[in-house]
């Protein structure tokens, strides 16, 4: 049952991240599919990959996008 919830959260987070006009919101919403994919790795019997994905996918990648948005412009033209 929890696998359906993770599947829906992953796809919905990916679509919502690409629909935002404010790029900082898009950068933060990029972390939502990364975190739910980390939970999905735990259910697929891969706990070491889940640890790496939880750090890289939900913390480091949104920070990279936020830094790039800070150095360029915030609103999509």
């Amino acid at each position, binding site marked *: 049952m929890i696998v359906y919830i*993770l*599947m829906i959260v992953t796809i919905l987070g*990916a679509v919502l991240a690409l629909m935002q006009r404010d790029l900082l919101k898009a950068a933060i919403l990029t972390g939502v599919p990364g975190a739910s994919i980390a939970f999905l790795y735990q259910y697929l019997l891969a706990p070491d*990959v889940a640890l790496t994905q939880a750090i890289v996918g939900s913390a480091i990648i949104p920070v*990279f*996008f936020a830094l790039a948005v800070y150095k360029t412009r915030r609103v999509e033209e």
Partner: protein
Amino acid sequence: MIIDVQLASLFTAVALIVIGIFAAVFLDNLIKKVIGLAFIGDGVNLFLISMGYKAGGIVYIYLPGMAADWFAQNAAYPLPFALVLTSIVIGASTMAVMLGIIIVLYKKRGSISASKILGE
């Protein structure tokens, strides 16, 4: 409708790859193109991990007291798990290089829209 963990993971991987290809081809903003490429990488990693899954199996850690034959029959296939661990980190670092190129392009051209940079 009852589907198991492996089939749900495959659906999620295919959906992520389709969303990523759509974003990388049809969206105009360069940062959103890079977000789409990151989604393609996540989808491919999820596909490889779900290929190694074994239904009703155990995590591939050999504890004392397990028989070797029983462990070989029930543990999940560990080779894609060891290699996807590398692929996640390489994907993050290549994405950092792409974002650096976008920052340099913004300083030279003053825009992050692909159609404005190409002059169309």
